[in-house]
C-alpha cells in the first residue's frame, strides 16, 4: 500500500507492510535524517521503533490501527540543520591494522590519507548496525575503499575504519569487514544513559589526529565526548 504525504513541506511516500511496518522514502530529499530524528523525538503513540537511514526510514507500529499514525506524521515539524552540533573527535591513526589495504587501493600514502580525512567535512550519517556503530559521512571519493570480501572475525572496540563511502566507528567488538585505520579513546556509546549516544544525526565531526601515547592516556582516564569538547 502506497501513500503520498507532505511532512513540513517535504514530499514523502509511505509503503505499508502488513500491520507492522511502514517504510518512508522521498524523491525530493537525499537525506532523511532530519525527518527521521523528528519522528523519533515526537514519540507518537503506538510507534514502537524508528530506524533511520539517509535514504529510508522504517517505522514499526504496534498492532493497533496505524491510520492515526499517518495523521500524526503529517503534523511533524522538521528541525533545521543549524541546530546541529560540532564535535572534536580524537583519533589515533598510529596503528598497522588495515593501512596497507587502504594505501594499496587508494594509491595514496598514509600521511596524505590522514590529511584528507582531517580536512573533510565529516558528518554523522547513520546509526546501526549494532549499538554504538556510527557511520560517518563525508569522505572524499579518493578515499572510498570497499569493505573486505571476507570480514574479520573480530574488530576491537574503539576501532575506526573505511567501508565504501563511510568512515565507521565500532564502539563494541564485532566481526566486521571495514578497513581499520585508527582508533578513538572516547566511548561514544554510554549505556545505560539516555540517550545511549549523545551525538546526533547530521552533527559535524572534526577529527583530530592524536599520538599513541595520548590515545593511551585518554583511554586510561576515560572522559565523555562532551567533556573532551568543553
Amino acid at each position, binding site marked *: 500500500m502506497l501513500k503520498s504525504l507532505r511532512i513540513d513541506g517535504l514530499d514523502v511516500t509511505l*509503503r505499508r*507492510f*502488513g*500491520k*507492522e*511496518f511502514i*517504510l518512508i522514502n522521498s524523491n525530493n530529499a537525499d537525506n532523511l535524517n532530519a525527518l*527521521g530524528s523528528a519522528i*523519533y523525538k515526537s514519540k507518537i503513540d503506538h510507534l*514502537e*521503533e*524508528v*530506524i*533511520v*537511514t*539517509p*535514504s*529510508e*526510514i*522504517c517505522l*514499526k507500529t504496534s498492532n493497533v490501527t496505524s491510520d492515526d499514525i499517518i495523521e500524526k506524521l503529517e503534523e511533524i515539524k522538521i528541525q533545521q540543520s543549524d541546530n546541529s552540533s560540532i564535535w572534536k573527535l580524537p583519533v589515533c591513526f598510529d596503528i598497522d591494522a588495515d593501512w596497507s589495504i587502504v594505501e594499496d587501493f587508494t594509491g595514496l600514502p598514509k600521511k596524505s590519507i590522514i590529511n584528507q580525512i582531517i580536512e573533510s567535512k565529516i558528518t554523522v550519517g*547513520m*546509526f*546501526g*548496525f*549494532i*549499538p*554504538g*556503530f556510527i*557511520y560517518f559521512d563525508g569522505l572524499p571519493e579518493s578515499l572510498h575503499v570497499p569493505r573486505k570480501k571476507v570480514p574479520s572475525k573480530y574488530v576491537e572496540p574503539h576501532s575506526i575504519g573505511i567501508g565504501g563511502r563511510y568512515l565507521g566507528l565500532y564502539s*563494541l567488538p*564485532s566481526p566486521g569487514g571495514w578497513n581499520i585505520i585508527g582508533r578513538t579513546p572516547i566511548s561514544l*556509546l554510554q*549505556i*545505560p544513559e*539516555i*540517550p*545511549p*549516544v549523545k551525538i546526533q544525526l547530521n552533527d559535524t565531526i572534526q577529527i583530530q589526529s592524536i599520538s599513541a601515547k595520548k590515545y593511551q592516556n585518554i583511554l586510561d582516564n576515560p572522559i565523555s565526548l562532551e567533556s573532551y569538547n568543553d
Partner: protein
Amino acid sequence: MTSITVIKPGLLTSIQDIGRRGYGYYAIPISGVMDSVSARRALLLCRLQESDPVIECTMIPPTIKFHGDAQIVLSGADFNWTINSEPVERNKIITVKNEDILSGQKATNGTRGYIAVRGSLITEKTYGSVSTYRNACIGGINGDYLKKGDNLQWKPLPFIDSSKIHVPSADHSTIEIQPGPEFDYLSDLAKFQLLENTYTIHNDSNRMGARLIGEPIDASTYQLSKSKPVLPGFIQLPPSGIPIVLLNDGQTTGGYPRIAYMNRANLDRFNQIAIGESFKFMMNSQ
C-alpha cells in the same frame, strides 16, 4: 524469598521479557523472548503480566535447584522436564519445594521453552527491559546468559490453585511470509524456488539471526546501493542466494535485499524450529 541456583546452564539460557522497545533508533535491538506465544502462556498461567520476565531455555535445558517453595509454569518445547527425576507437565502450575531440582533433556517438538516463576524477579532493567542482549552486555545477569553457579531471586506471590491449558503439538513445517521491500529483485524463477525449497536451520544460527541450508535462488542484485533499516522477522538475501532471517538480537541496518518478512505470529513459530530441522516458506501476499 525464592531463589534458584544454576547447577548446569544448558545451551543458551537467558532472562528475557517482551523486549526493549524504542531504542532501535540507536541500533539497540528489541531482544526479548523468541517465542512470545509460549512465554505469554507461562506468564498468564502464573497470573503474571505479559511483560514480566521469564527464563528462556534453548535446545539443551538448564539444571536448576530451588531454594524456598514456589510455583512455576513450564511452556514451549518439550524438554522432558523432571523435578527430582519425576516427570512434570508443561502448561500447568507446578508447586516446587525447597531443594527441588528441575532438569530436562534435549528439546523435541520445538527448540525453545520458558520457565515462569510466580513472583517478581529481583533484577535491574536497562532501557525498560530485563532482556539479555549479550553483545552490549545489557540485561540478564550482568549482561550475560545464565552460567553455572548463578543465583536468581524472586519475591514470591501467594500460591494459587492449579490451572492448566492443553496445548496441541505445534506444527512449524510451514512458515508464512509476505513480500518484502525488495521482493521484486527476485527473478520469477527465484520467487517460485523460495516457496518450493525445503530449508533447514543451519548450525550457525542464534538469537541474532537464522542461517539456512537450501538451494540458492537468483536475485538481480545481492547488494543494495545503500544500507536499509531492518527489524526482527525481515528476510535478507545475501550473495550466497540462501536467505537469512533476522531475529530478536539482530542488527538494525543492512545492505542485502529484504526479499520478504514474517509477522510476529510466524516469527514465534519460526523460532521453535530446531537446528537441523526443516521447513518451507508459504507466501501470504495480503
